[in-house]
């Protein structure tokens, strides 16, 4: 199983599903990390955690602990 945490900066993936529940899941959905959405990992923070991802029209940062709960599809390499 590949999660958002495994994606290197520059990688672009599609979100498959969330393993989290409750408030965490709601928060991720609210900020646009919905199933089927394409995300690009932009960078990790200077100390490696958290990470920053780019969505359609916004940039969101999340801890690796949360990123590990987001299952993603194999990397889409056509566009970086």
């Amino acid at each position, binding site marked *: 199983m590949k999660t958002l945490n495994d994606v290197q900066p520059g990688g672009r993936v599609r979100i498959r599903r969330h393993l989290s529940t409750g408030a965490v899941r*709601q928060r991720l959905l609210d*900020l646009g990390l919905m199933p089927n959405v394409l995300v690009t990992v932009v*960078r990790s*923070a200077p100390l490696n*955690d958290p990470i920053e991802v780019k969505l*359609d029209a916004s940039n*969101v940062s999340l801890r690796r602990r949360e990123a590990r709960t987001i299952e993603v599809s194999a990397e889409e390499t056509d566009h970086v």
Partner: protein
Amino acid sequence: MSEHASSGHQGVLVALAGQQNAGKSTLFNVLTGARQHVANYPGVTVDKKYGQYADDAGTVHTVDLPGTYSLTSFSLEERVAREFLLDERPDVTVNVVDASNLRRSLHLTLQLLELELPTVLALNMMDVAESNGVRIDKTALAERLGLPVVATVGRKGEGREPLRAAIRAEATRQAAAPTAPPPPVRYGALEPAIVQLIARTAPQAGLDGVPRRWLALQLLQGDAAAAQVLEKRLGSELAGPIREDARRFIEAFESAEGIEVSDHVVACRDRVVETLLDGAVIGADDGRPSVTDRIDRVVLNRWAAPLFLVATVFAIYQVSIVWGYELTTYTWPFLAKLRELIAGVLPSANFLVDPYSRSLGLWLVDSANTLLNYVPIFLILFAAIAIIEDSGYMARIAFILDKILHRFGLHGQSTLPLILGGVFAGGCAVPGVMATKGIPDTRARFATILTVPFMNCLAKVPLYTLLLGIFFVEHKSLMMFYISTMTIIFALLVAKLLTKTVLRGQETSPFVMELPQYHLPTVSGVLRRSFERTWQYIQKVGTVVLAVAVVVFALLHLPGLSAESKAGYEERGQAAVAQFEAALAENSYRDVALGDNLVPLVNYFTDYKRAKLNAAGAAASQRVAEKFETRNPDFYPLVKPPAGDRDAKRAWGALRKLAAARQTLRREMREERITTSILGSIGRGLEPVTQFAGFDWKINVALLSSFAARESSVATLGVLFQQDDDQNATLEERMGAETRAGGATGLLAVSMLLFFALYPPCLATTIMVKVQTGSYKWMLFSIVFPTFLGLGVASAVYSIGTAAGASGITAMSAVYWGAFALLLLVGLLSERQAGRRLRARLSQAGADA
């Protein structure tokens, strides 16, 4: 909220709802102008901002709801916003959306429509959208949503009139014929369950005003607050079966569809949003990096990020704390003048014992001035914070530092409160605690609130300086280094401890945060926020500080001197007066100076001396002279004898002696009063406990009175270690001599330093703790816990140090490096623990799925 209900007949109630970073508050300011107020929603610490404006047809009351991404009941802000919308049913809801991010924003719009609220859509930040190359077909969007749509640019004040017109039109339309918007989303396979639940709740009159379709949808999503509404309105007998039905529907749906209800709901809404936007919004991502992307490449670069961060922190510190403090030297004279003015109005001083109205009045003015003195610092500080917030850099700071802080139970956004509290040396815990407001994670927010007071606030510095000057002359810089870095070590350790213990049960939320686009802050926006927050500080802190100042005054003054010792002082006072009278027996100024004039004359003399002392420069000195001459031309020759007037000169000499005698008597009385006061008794009563830390009762009293305001610790020590008139030693020398004579060493100083570093926050801060946590329980905790911690640490260090015969500097080094080692250990351990827990959770989730 009754103010709206009562005015509902003449006025219109409008609520502004929107997601964070959509510019909602800016648009609120544009809409209402200067007439607005901030209050709290009942029982919670969420700000309720309301204001009003008038258009041709009447008054419009406007409420700015907290920014929320959606309307579930997971976070406090969402619960507050939702309750307001449900209970108050505003006539019009203005949904402020970020035009450059419609795909996300419209999810909230759909939820507002499901609440059946008459809505106007404000497409805010149109300029940003346009500069990002996004073109929006407003008409098409309005048609598809069935809502009035207005384009606005809140930051530039554009779109106010069209928005006001749209609000009025919608309100008028609703007043004529109330119509709820049609349900915006069809939920496919979930629809049968929704319809059945509506059928179950529709006949219940107890649910009037609650949109049934919305309620059904919430129950199916397992929303706890919606279930509570049902329970409360219908009672558990009626609500029970309905909730049971909902539970069955959920189970049936999830086993049939293989997807959770809430995921299905989000997916359905997202499809609707896509249809809404299709063709109505063109452009967006052209693949080119935006300005924000380009800035972040530099500012968030792995190596450059720490540099920018340090530079920013240093700039805030320099501008607000250092320069702001310098500014107070210019503003202080105004406060001093205010004190003089009030002193002039109060009943004048007697020879020995002043009327309580005078001493209490001046005590209150002094307490108020201590607070007001910080106003320039706060104005600058809050402006600097507003700039960093509005620009979008604040979120980046959290991004950079979250890893370290999170490991100790804090949050990336704890950085700013800690800086304001005085990470280096010199800050103030009051704005520090205030700034915790933005931290979304309750547990981390509480941990931050409780550790900010450990920072080195400006008022702790005088005591540090005093103690270093007495005991650590040769190790001054090393000690300064220890003191200024030790606090953050302690704070992190305490944060970790609290998170693991008392804060365990507090709500936490994930660190999932938008990194907003960079904006240039506007001058008016920054100024407005700065004044607003400073005013809040004065209001909230000021009133309570004055109230408690009265209590401390009483503790220091009661029970007062015993009758016989008072008689003793009176006798000595009369002796001094008699001496003065004798000296003036043959003097031509006899009638001017004696009798009823005597006390006013001595007061006049002391006032003159103080005024002369405060006057800087020849011109100011001249002004003082003129002022006193006009105030009382008869007395003037006695305080400034004209050349050649021998009688005046002799009277002046006698007067000077009398004034000095009076001062000595008053000081002795004050000392005895403090010694016998309730606070003095408490200080003595605490000696058995504090002796392990090496504190005698004098130090206890100083530390106790510093609770009212930190600055007073040095002042109280000054009173207690008083000099006789023939001595002219500094407080350092006196305290040093006296405490050394008592066998004290540098070890005692270390014990005091540690206690003071861990000491409870000052009064003003505890008030702010109450405001920010919304509970007296936490306020009390913020006082009691540090007291025991400080006393424990100080006692351990002093007792062990004494037993081991360690010197002050050795003890301090041992404490410092011990704490540092503990910090590293805790940091490494919590990393491993977190990893283990997460793996366990994930394997659990994997098994469930």
